[in-house]
């Protein structure tokens, strides 16, 4: 059930109506029921994977608490704890790896050894990356004593499957999300109004910005030779499309959760205003970044073999470099994982490592930067220096988008070359934006994209300055709110692109 389908809209309406009509005690059961119906609607068989992941992590949590309460010996607790967590990790990620990467492994074995192994046809359970990560995070939190294990398996099942977020995140944390899911609430008109408002804003970003930009992006990336002079527009369009699509989807998801009085973790914070790649990852797909930080980066950095490597590095390269080197290595590992998470293809691995390299290099050169700044007499953070940082980061991010969007690494490199050597903006007007292949509306759509970006830009600046836009809108008279509401509502059909040329949400494939 796609987020943009009428069926989904009605499904949400039914879920919300039922939620507030239910006796308060069982409101969470209602959410669980709808979450399972939602997941089953993409295929009854897929429920197996969801239930599997739920049971594995639930059992791990329970076992950990049993060991802790029944064992006295601290060493034994540690030993059993490690065994349990290792088992849980292998079972949980093993399934994800098999479902997502089997064919990639076969492909590479075939090309390396010239074998002719057949691909296996595996169905990819929707959202498996997201709920595997979410449930694994819970398991590790219990292991580290950051949260208490859930006793009720049905409650826990809701935490893993809560339907708004199961397809494309945000990846929730047990300590922040679970309590909210089980709280009972009474109907509140304002909550509904604000939820719908956010949903509309999300659809606006998706349909008006992402989908319109997407038409140009598909055209340019599907024929890089013909549109060589548009490479730079292709990648800029993709940065609009990806942001509008993913953050718009997040707003829809967050808005739906808000309808139930639930607040999910924020996943985007004006990423294109980032001043470094590190900063970018603190603003883009935030829940994936913090997940990686807490459950991969720190554990790897603090592991025994890493600290041995650190001691060796300090001896070999001196104190300050030696200290940073293991962190850089851990960071590269994280981004390798991020790359692999995005998909089973080499271009994603390149994409991940590219990000990791930049962060590692800037980590290693941190002291150097400070010296350069001093030498250039740049004191503090003047506005032009910040602007420079933002533009520099934006360009670095766009380079990474080439890898993300292009069909292959060679295509990405080819288009990057064109982006600097060839430039024919007028060619944009030859790209058809209608199914009929007509270019009559192309200029109009370009204007819509530009206007939409301008609006988004100003909204982002206000937010960056700490203005609470939605709060101040809520204080306005009803007539103003109605006007905003209707304007957003009618922008979707008037300015948005129909799905015939674009399709569903990009991140729903992970």
């Amino acid at each position, binding site marked *: 059930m796609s987020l943009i389908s*009428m069926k989904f809209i009605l499904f949400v309406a039914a879920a919300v109506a039922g939620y507030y009509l239910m006796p308060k005690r069982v409101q969470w059961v209602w959410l669980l029921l709808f979450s399972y119906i939602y997941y089953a609607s993409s295929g009854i068989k897929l429920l197996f994977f969801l239930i599997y992941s739920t049971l594995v992590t639930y059992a791990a949590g329970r076992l950990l608490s049993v060991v802790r309460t029944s064992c006295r010996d601290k060493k034994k607790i540690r030993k059993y704890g490690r065994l349990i967590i290792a088992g849980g990790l292998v079972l949980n990620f093993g399934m994800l790896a098999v479902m997502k990467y089997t064919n990639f492994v076969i492909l590479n074995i075939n090309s390396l050894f010239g074998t002719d192994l057949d691909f296996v046809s595996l169905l990819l359970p929707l959202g498996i990356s997201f709920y595997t990560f979410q449930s694994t995070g819970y398991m590790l939190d219990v292991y580290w004593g950051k949260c208490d294990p859930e006793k009720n398996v049905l409650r826990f099942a809701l935490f893993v499957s809560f339907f708004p977020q199961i397809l494309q995140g945000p990846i929730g944390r047990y300590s922040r999300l679970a309590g909210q899911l089980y709280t009972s609430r009474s109907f509140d008109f304002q909550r509904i109004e604000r939820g719908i408002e956010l949903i509309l804003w999300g659809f606006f970003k998706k349909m008006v910005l992402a989908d319109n930009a997407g038409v140009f992006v598909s055209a340019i990336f599907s024929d890089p030779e013909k549109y060589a002079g548009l490479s730079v527009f292709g990648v800029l369009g993709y940065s609009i499309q990806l942001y509008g699509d993913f953050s718009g989807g997040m707003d829809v998801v967050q808005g739906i959760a808000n309808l139930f009085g639930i607040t999910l973790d924020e996943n985007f914070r004006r990423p294109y205003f980032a001043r470094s790649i590190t900063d970018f990852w603190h603003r883009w797909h935030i829940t994936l970044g913090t997940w990686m930080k807490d459950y991969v980066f720190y554990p790897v950095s603090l592991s025994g073999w890493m600290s041995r490597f650190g001691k060796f590095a300090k001896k070999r390269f001196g104190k300050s470099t030696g200290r940073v080197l293991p962190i850089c290595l851990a960071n590269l590992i994280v981004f390798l994982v991020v790359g692999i998470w995005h998909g089973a293809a080499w271009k994603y691995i390149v994409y991940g490592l590219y990000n990791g390299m930049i962060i590692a290099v800037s980590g290693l050169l941190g002291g150097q930067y400070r010296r350069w700044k001093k030498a250039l007499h740049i004191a503090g953070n003047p506005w032009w220096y910040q602007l420079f940082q933002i533009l520099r980061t934006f360009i670095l991010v766009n380079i990474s988008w080439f890898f993300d969007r292009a069909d292959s690494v060679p295509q990405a490199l080819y288009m990057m070359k064109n982006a600097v050597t060839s430039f024919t903006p007028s060619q944009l007007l030859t790209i058809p934006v*209608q199914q009929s292949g007509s270019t009559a509306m192309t200029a109009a759509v370009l204007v819509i994209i530009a206007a939409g970006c301008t609006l988004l830009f100003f909204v982002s600046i206000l937010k960056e300055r700490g203005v609470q836009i939605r709060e101040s809108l809520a204080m306005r008279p009803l007539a103003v709110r109605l006007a905003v509401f209707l304007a957003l509502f009618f922008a979707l059909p008037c300015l948005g692109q129909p799905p015939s040329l674009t399709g569903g949400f990009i991140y729903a494939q992970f």
Partner: protein
Amino acid sequence: MRNFKRFAAAVLVLAIVLAANSVLLYALYPYTYSRVDIHNLTTADHDTLFVGSSHGKCGFNPEVFDSVCGTASTNQCLGGEYPIDAYHLVRLACETGHKPRQVIYELDAGYFVSEPNEGADFAILYQEFPASFTKLRYWMTKILDGDFRNTLFPWYLYRGKIFSVKDTLTQKAGDEYRNYGISSFANPAQIYHSTGFIERLVQPSDKSVKDTPVLYTGSNISSESENYLRRLAQFCESEDIRLITVTTPVPEVTLQEYSSAYKGADQYFTSLCKELGIEYYNCNYMEEFSSLRDLSYFADYDGHYYGQYANLFTERFAKMLDFDDSVTYN
């Protein structure tokens, strides 16, 4: 009091949306021959319904067919008509009391290896359906799965018609629209007949571009399309309607160029129809039609007949069908 105000606001929003929608739908949604097709389907009796894609629309001339068989038939094919649409067309005819005796379904493999595309023709038949259970069923099975804008803003796929609003309004106020006239559908490239047939005319630009047809590959079958052909077969059986399926000829050059794809599609349809117990004729592999596959008879490589060759094809097809066993005509 506060809540009352809010509910009043919600009702107001709803009213504004509904009013704007009906105005916009009236002003933007154009007059198309689908309106005439559906009108014919639901107001007159026909022995034979032709359903299928644009190949059928340009290939089967009901006048010729009826002159051979002595029947009354209507061509309900349409470019972009998927099995799900054909199924609901047949049901609609039955629900409105105009049950046909036979349905001739033109099968195009391209429609069995793709899903309905949410372009301008996605909801066109749905829009024209009169209020009925079939329409409700159609909404639930097709429109409900589509973009919510199809339901909440039924005019949105036609927003591009904003520049011809004046023409649309004048047309809709006129007699032609009220009386289901067809003169406005004629243009230098084609003439629409009141039987639903489209007569393609020779154009200098024809065949200047060579489009690649959507091809059967053996692994890209749409389960939804197959499913609705099954349902159509079941429905026809339960209603005692004879269901005949046919693949119309494509130019010999196209057939040669994509021979394995066309052969594969032939095998697929042959075995599927055998399983469903319905007749299937693939004119690409039948001796009777081998002389009707010259490229010059078609408006394009994809296989849309020019009017005069469509007549020849229809005649030959009508003669070939063996009517005696299951259908009698007055």
